């Protein structure tokens, strides 16, 4: 290509000019493709970089923060937890089963690339309105895809979250998270080193699938997106399982210099990242790349997003021994190049140089935008006088329990093998999943994913804080010490200042919460342009939190345990209905400011809860979240198959607001009656408001003078909604 091409493959004119300057000539097709993917939003983070830098990433227990394939934290006993969350939003909308399945495959690779055996998967999902004609099909496909992949690979899928909202009608979110465990002194990184060292390709063969997926993930949808039908990637979980075993076996040796999975933009981004991090050049012999199809061009080989592939740099002379391991696992293994001191990426095929690009200038010159943004205007306060509270609060509770965002997700998690591995101590359905660390005494990891997008929309800063705080709270509620988070920033088109303002606001809120809670960000992912025809999704910074329980026998669960146990509420009731689920589901209004998050109170309350659980006096614990106090009580009752009788919490709001309001930093705990006074004293000493609300027992949930509903009625509402919805005939 000696002249300016008509199709700049997604680059702007200015970006193209910059590319010409870097090369000193016009790029050829494969080179242009490489510029295009390397400078895409997905690979370069060009709109988000400036802001992401503000997130706290350090703590004494952080071994490796953002910048590698996944984040690494020290969990004691010489072990590290390695985790990350990643989106597969666009592919899952186009082909829900394969899109979600390959999303799981991709995030697994990010984690085992670093030397960890994956021990748990989670998934944060957002779908459109249940009434939207595509929603059912998308839910069915995504859930089957996540299960289909994770179950076969043999990694338990132990948690996640699901929301439904019309803002996701044209852009669903599929965020997958993997947590793995590795010896803390055997972490593998991606910086290439050692001129002359062999560059090795392992895994599946390369086909023509998913070419330009990275740029697709960086573009908006329009109505004809489905017509474009980019080649969808098909996942092969069995091959992934082989790849995990083979890589972990190779990692027992000292043959590996650097390793990197081939994710978005395949061979291009993996080779560039390895070379650029290590400050070396690389020469790739494209004839050696194992190809699934004949006649593949350099462009196709470099940009294919075929799944289940990895790139490694080995120590010299170790090729044969490494190859033997991959052959044992029946995987392809090929030396496809070596490291050079040229600082250039050189591509050779059929004896010719087919591409030649300087690595650092390309990587360093990758665009970084300070996009214009406007802060989200504060929402108008909610006028309490104008809220028509439902007359029958019992009926209101039943409706809430069967509403799409609260109804039981059993239909989903029963399609996931959440037990494989023999270490799942807390199954889905509680505040956080708990998985024992294999062969480490009683140590266990707790994990959760959280975000309340309707809060983020109304007030990005509070929403960002709340997402982090809720993850921290959910880990605390099982008794774990929260350690760090991964995030998945899902937003609309960053070229619109309002959307950029949402992003900036959420990051600010997250930053504050991470600092206040000693809960740093160690990895993450950004997914922008989640828009269809100019309408963006709700801002959704999904947070994946990980914590540690030193003694799994001290783990708390949400289920009521014994008749007569006292129910204690920690935290203050103000009856905050703004942006509450009850306001939306029962009054049809999405209004007002979200509940404010006071991080000092959050910390104080959570620290107390954790201590009380560790002391062994707490028989059940649940944080108060969507649906407020009474929904949390109902969830505890259903989990324990035991009712309760409680009074209204004190506060100068209506019973409706006190029961369904969503003020933050609150937990419900139960204790045997003989510990009641000790618990109250401990709370007083910690400066945390605590009140005995009632006690466990019976087969009804009763709020004296307000409502009394049989557990069986609540159970039916809670359990029947999702299966009922999913089995209704598909719309034509």
């Amino acid at each position, binding site marked *: 290509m000696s002249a300016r091409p008509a199709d700049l493959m997604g680059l702007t004119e200015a970006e193209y000019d910059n590319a010409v300057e870097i090369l000193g000539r016009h790029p050829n097709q494969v080179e242009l493709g490489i510029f295009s993917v390397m400078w895409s939003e997905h690979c370069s983070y060009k709109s988000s970089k400036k802001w992401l830098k503000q997130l706290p990433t350090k703590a004494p227990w952080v071994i490796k923060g953002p910048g590698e394939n996944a984040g690494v934290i020290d969990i004691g006993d010489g072990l590290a937890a390695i985790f990350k969350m990643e989106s597969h939003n666009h592919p899952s909308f186009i082909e829900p089963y394969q899109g979600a399945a390959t999303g799981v495959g991709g995030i697994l690779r990010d984690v085992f690339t670093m030397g960890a055996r994956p021990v748990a998967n989670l998934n944060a999902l957002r779908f459109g309105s249940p009434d939207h004609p595509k929603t059912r099909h998308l839910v069915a496909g995504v859930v089957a895809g996540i299960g289909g992949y994770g179950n076969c690979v043999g990694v338990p899928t132990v948690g996640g979250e699901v929301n439904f909202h019309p803002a996701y009608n044209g852009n669903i979110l599929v965020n997958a998270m993997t947590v793995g465990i590795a010896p803390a002194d055997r972490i593998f990184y991606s910086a290439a080193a050692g001129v002359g060292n062999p560059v090795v390709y392992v895994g599946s063969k390369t*086909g023509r699938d998913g070419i330009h997926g990275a740029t697709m993930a960086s573009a908006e949808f329009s109505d004809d997106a489905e017509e474009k039908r980019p080649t969808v990637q*098909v996942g*092969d979980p*069995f*091959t992934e399982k082989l790849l995990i075993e083979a890589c972990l076996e190779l990692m027992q040796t000292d043959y590996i210099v650097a390793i990197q999975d081939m994710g978005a933009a395949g061979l291009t981004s993996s080779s560039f990242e390895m070379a650029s991090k290590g400050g070396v050049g690389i020469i790739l012999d494209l004839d050696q790349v194992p190809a699934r199809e004949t006649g593949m061009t350099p462009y196709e080989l470099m940009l294919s997003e075929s*799944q289940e592939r990895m790139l490694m740099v080995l120590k010299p002379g170790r090729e044969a021994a490494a190859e033997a391991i991959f052959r044992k696992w*029946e995987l392809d293994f090929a030396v496809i190049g070596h490291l050079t001191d040229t600082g250039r990426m050189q591509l050779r095929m059929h004896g010719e140089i087919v591409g030649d690009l300087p690595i650092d200038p390309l990587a360093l010159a990758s665009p970084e935008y300070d996009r214009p943004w406007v802060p989200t205007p504060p929402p108008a306060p909610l006028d309490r006088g104008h809220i028509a509270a439902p007359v029958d609060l019992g009926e209101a509770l039943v409706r809430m329990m069967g509403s799409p965002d609260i109804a039981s997700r059993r239909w989903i998690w029963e399609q996931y093998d959440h037990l494989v591995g023999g270490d799942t101590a807390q199954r889905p359905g509680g505040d956080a999943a708990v998985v024992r660390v294999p062969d480490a005494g009683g140590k266990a990891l707790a994990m959760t994913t959280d975000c309340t997008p309707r809060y983020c929309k109304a007030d990005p800063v509070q929403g960002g804080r709340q997402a982090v705080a809720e993850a921290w709270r959910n880990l605390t509620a099982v008794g774990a010490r929260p350690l760090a988070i991964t995030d998945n920033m899902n937003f609309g088109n960053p070229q619109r200042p309002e959307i950029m303002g949402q992003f900036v606001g959420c990051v600010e809120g997250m930053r504050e919460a991470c600092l206040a809670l000693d809960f740093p960000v160690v990895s993450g992912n950004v997914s922008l342009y989640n828009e269809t025809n100019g309408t963006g999704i709700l801002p959704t910074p999904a947070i994946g939190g990980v914590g540690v329980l030193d003694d799994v026998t001290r783990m708390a669960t949400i289920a009521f345990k014994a008749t007569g146990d006292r129910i204690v509420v920690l935290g203050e009731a103000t009856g905050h209905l703004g942006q509450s689920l009850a306001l939306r589901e029962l009054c049809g209004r999405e209004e007002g400011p979200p509940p404010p998050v006071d991080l000092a109170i959050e910390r104080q309350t959570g620290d107390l809860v954790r201590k009380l659980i560790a002391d062994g006096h707490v028989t059940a614990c649940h944080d108060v979240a969507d649906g407020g106090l009474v929904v949390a009580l109902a969830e505890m009752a259903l989990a324990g198959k035991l009712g309760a009788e409680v009074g209204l919490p004190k506060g100068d709001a209506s019973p409706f607001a006190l029961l369904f309001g969503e003020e933050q930093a609150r937990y419900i705990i139960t204790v045997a009656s003989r510990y009641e006074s000790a618990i109250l004293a401990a709370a007083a000493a910690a400066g945390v408001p605590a009140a005995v609300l009632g006690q466990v027992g019976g087969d009804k949930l009763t709020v004296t003078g307000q409502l009394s509903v049989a557990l069986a009625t609540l159970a039916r509402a809670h359990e029947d909604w999702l299966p009922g919805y999913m089995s209704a005939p598909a719309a034509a």
Partner: protein
Amino acid sequence: MKAKVHVTLKNGVLDPQGKAIGNALSGLGFTGVDDVRQGKYIELDLAEKDPAKARESVEAMCRQLLANTVIENYAIELVG
């Protein structure tokens, strides 16, 4: 009237099933199998007697349900 529908993966789409079968066959000692592709075969008993109408309706079934046209092709054959 009976409709026989074949649903096969489009060219270029990875076929893990076919690949696995190919590997297994060679493991069993069957040589000379160059490629294996696996698809679905669906038989429908239709009340409709008119071939044109039957085909039209099966076409619609394929597009809406039987085939995932993002990655699969379908072929319809009517008998009887």
